[in-house]
């Protein structure tokens, strides 16, 4: 190392010490700016050393460059840190009212019935069911005949129907989707059909001429009533919690045999008896049963080989229980003060 280089390195060391002293004494932005000009500016001492590079022996240039760069980096980082430290800490003395209201973004809501429907779909999707749909304007064949509800049969009285003409009607349940799905595919079939249905009921607290239903169907070899009970139990627990009990009562539907009504233990009183369950401890949910062989005949399934179950449920009924709503009409009023609660 030549004497020249040695001297330069010493000077650099002095420069570093002087810089550290200056920076430690810096009190404000002006001090900082002066230091910046003195040590990091275009005409700074460090810059002057860089200009000196050309004047030393080429063998020693890399050595000097290395030291210079280290110094420059060191100075820059130290300066930045000091500058950061000196930055005013917010404006501690300026009054800022954090309690002024935030400016709200506009966000909408999904209709509560669709929120419940989403939940139902999700549960059945997790149980391996597909989601199918069909038209609301249905033919007599799909809505009644193929579901073993012949013309001039008292079972037609179970559902008061809106007719368009002799053959066209508004579907009274989503059960026609069962038929349409079975016509389209062979077993195994496991589907739910959510959708709008129509019955000629004058609107009151528990009836709406337009309502929503979810129909379920599962057909395969070896499907049993015990499977039906299993799937309804799973659904009940996923929707209302692990403590819900289910109960099946014999009933009659033309498209299932045996037919049942199923009840959930009251979700309000846990089955103890309250005004919602009229003291019985049970809530009527809907109907279910094993697919009637006559229905299989309509869609060309072998009723000896395949068995299946079907079930239905009213979406409004479930939403009313879930949200503790006692009048079905509120869903169709669409009062924004109602919608915004969900």
């Amino acid at each position, binding site marked *: 190392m030549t004497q020249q280089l040695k001297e330069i390195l010493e000077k650099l060391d002095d420069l570093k010490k002087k810089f550290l002293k200056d920076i430690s004494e810096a009190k404000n932005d002006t001090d900082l700016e002066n230091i910046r000009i003195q040590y990091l500016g275009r005409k700074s001492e460090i810059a002057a050393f860089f200009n000196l590079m050309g004047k030393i022996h080429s063998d020693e240039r890399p050595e000097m460059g290395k030291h210079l760069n280290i110094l420059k980096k060191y100075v820059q980082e130290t300066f930045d840190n000091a500058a950061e430290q000196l930055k005013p800490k917010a404006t501690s003395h300026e009054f800022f009212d954090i309690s002024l209201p935030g400016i709200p973004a*506009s966000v*909408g809501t999904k209709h509560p019935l669709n929120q419940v429907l989403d939940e139902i779909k999700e549960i059945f999707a997790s149980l*391996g069911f597909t989601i199918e749909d069909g038209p609301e304007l249905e033919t007599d064949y799909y809505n009644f005949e193929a579901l073993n509800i012949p013309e001039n049969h008292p079972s037609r009285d179970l559902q008061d129907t809106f*007719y368009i003409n002799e053959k066209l009607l508004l579907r009274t349940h989503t059960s026609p989707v069962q038929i349409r799905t079975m016509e389209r595919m062979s077993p195994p079939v496991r589907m739910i059909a959510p959708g709008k249905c129509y019955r000629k009921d004058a609107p009151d607290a528990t009836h709406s001429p*337009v309502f929503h239903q979810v129909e379920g169907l599962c057909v395969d070899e070896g499907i049993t*009533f*015990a499977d039906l009970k299993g799937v309804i*139990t799973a659904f009940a627990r996923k929707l209302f919690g692990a403590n819900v009990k289910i109960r099946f*009562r014999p009933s009659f539907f033309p498209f299932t*045999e045996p037919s049942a009504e199923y009840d959930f233990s009251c979700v309000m009183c846990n089955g103890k008896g309250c005004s919602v369950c009229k003291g019985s401890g049970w809530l009527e949910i809907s109907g279910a049963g094993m697919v009637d062989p006559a229905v299989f005949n309509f869609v060309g399934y072998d009723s000896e080989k395949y068995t299946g179950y079907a079930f239905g449920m009213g979406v409004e009924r479930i939403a009313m229980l879930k949200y503790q709503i006692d009048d079905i009409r509120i869903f169709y009023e669409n009062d924004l003060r109602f919608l915004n609660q969900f």
Partner: protein
Amino acid sequence: MKVTVDWLKQYVDFSQSPKEVASILTMLGLEVDSVRQIAYEFENIIVGEIVAIRKHELKGNLSICTVNTVTETISLVCGAPHVAPGMKVPVAVVGSKLPGGITVKSATIHGYESPGMICSEAELGLSRQSEIIMVLNESARIGQDLKDVLNRGEVVIEIDLTPNRPDCLGAIGIAREIAAFNRSTIKKPKINLNETTTLKTSDVINVIIENPESCPRYTARYLEGIKISHSPHWLIKKLEAVGLRSINNVVDVTNFVMMETGQPLHAFDYDQLKKKTIVVRHAKGGETFTTLDEKEHSLSNQMLMICDGEKPVALAGVMGGLNSEISNSTTRVLLESAYFTPSNIRKTAKTLGISSDSSQRFERGVDPDGLIYALDRASQLIQELAGGKIAQGCIDCNPRPFEKRAIKLRVDRINQLLGAAIPVAEVVDILERLEFKTTANKNIIDVQIPSFRVDIEREVDLIEEVARVYGFNRIVEKSYSLISLSQSAKKEERFSQLLRNISVGIGYNEVLTQSLINGKWAEKFTDNPCVRLKNPLSEDLGTLRTSLIPGMLQIIKWNKNRYINDQRLFELGHIFYWSDPNQSAHCEEQKIAFIRIGNTGQINWLSAPRASTFYDLKGDVLSLFEQLKISNFQFSNAELKFLDNQSLELSIKQTKAGYIGRLTPELLEKLDIQEDIFVAELDITTLFQNYTWDKKFHPIPRYPATKRDISLLIDEQIPIQKVEEVIKLAGNQFLKSARLFDYYKGKQVSQNKKSLTFSLIFFSTDRTLTEKEVDSELESIIQSLKSTLNAQLRA
């Protein structure tokens, strides 16, 4: 179907409480709707004995009865003709309460002070009809509270019976279910007919069935010398408890036996039958007939009539005729017990709009082997209550006998369907309890079906019988373990969810409206013929919606009436119309609609509210498109009758996809709303078809973009879309986007001109563009704007 507990106890012994019985029936599939005790509506009515009677001096039709009530002896004024000393009667004294909240006071009647009254059943609310004084049983104790004497707080059980169980449309049928549950047997009332030997039924009446397909069996009996009068107290009570009105002793018996056995009966006044022949035949078109409710019906060909050889006397199985009904002067009665084919009766009842207790039973199917029992039971009761003679023998015209039904039942199949393990012995036991006859051969049981179970036709029907008595709740649920290889939600379903989520995100509340609307409103939103209901609930719910907008406007109105002015609503749903004028083909389409009214955003302190404009809704819809990554749409001016000039139609690849616009002032006036309403409706199927499911990654540009702003002055009439097209056409190399960010019309620019400022972004995917490259493309854009649109560049 209503039945009282006392009534059931006549046919079956049971120890359960009414509530417990209700629960048993419900769990057997006869769903009990209510269990109701008939409450007495009186208070403090006591038993009194009439000790003396004398005539009222002024009013001969009144009598003064001296009545002993143990605590006192009082004189009461009474208007009834049949009072006699020694009678025990219900007495209301001063302070007693009568139905309707009446408190008995002392009254002066034609000069006589009457400190109370002797009551009739009607006055006590025990009966609607009987106006005569109620005479109590000998065993009633003087001074006893009447409630204790009656001691028959009848409990009425109301069952919501499913249409497959006509056998339970009679009390005996319900009793049979209880017996099956309790492993006991039913006691059918014994028949003990006292027929006369001097007169044969076949001598006085002849039955001809012309249409056996509608009437396979007809039985009848003849009674004469009977006396029509009131029914006794017990019979009136029973009928009223189950909701029937007492008419007279003969008609009441037919109703009673119907409620007991489920078999409807009809009594004709024999003297009103012209020829002594009953002809059962289909009506002739054009015939008219007046039923006993005095309504005239015009008959059609298939309707089954009971005729007397000359004229119709009853609408078979539905209602009797006015011309042959039992009257107070009737002395000779022809009693009918028949089987009519269910579908025929149902058709008639439906067509004529009559639903009677009789038609309801026939259309569900009565017990073809139960006709004679019901006929004999009724004949016996009529004789007991109305006297007279029963002619010997009954007419039994049975041209089409029912075959006995037998079904093979595989126990393995039961368990296979139920997922249970019910042993053969238990299956046999259950069926026997239900009065099925069984012969078991290993796992296969031959089952004879009793005639009253018309609903059992197949093996699976028997499986249901076994299951319901075995108990659904004894079948253990199977935990569910199946995997599905298919995708749960179809793409259409997922697309609808996506639309919902985006719409919520851009600030819209989802609504669900009635798909049935007023036809006048449906017409305003379509040029297609509307689909109308044949049997609507009301005009307002009479037509299927042709657009989602009218229903949503009702919601706007509803909320505005509740002082909610700023509304943004969306709905997904189906719309309907006839796709041909002959109404032979229809369309059902899925739409999404948006409505906004009022100010943008919520009121806040930082910025002033601003009324929503057409461009706000347009922006919302375009945000939806941006989220869907659908960009290949075009706008054109809309020509829709419900929108004014601020409206556009949207199409994608030449297919109409929807519209955005402002409602016409006429519609606003109809709605009585003074503010602008902006609406949009889009076709979901079209959007779905243009949506890309398989999204592919596009590399993010690695080189920086360059931004240039240009300000133009152009003719006011030139649409922005045109300007954008010119810019995009000229900027064909590096131009990425051109966004309008300033728009001005007014004093600062010359008339008929507008000032536009666009922000243009240029970039290249393979290098950083030089200033020169950008400037050159910008220059060609400017030149193109100048030459094609006569635009001037502003400084």
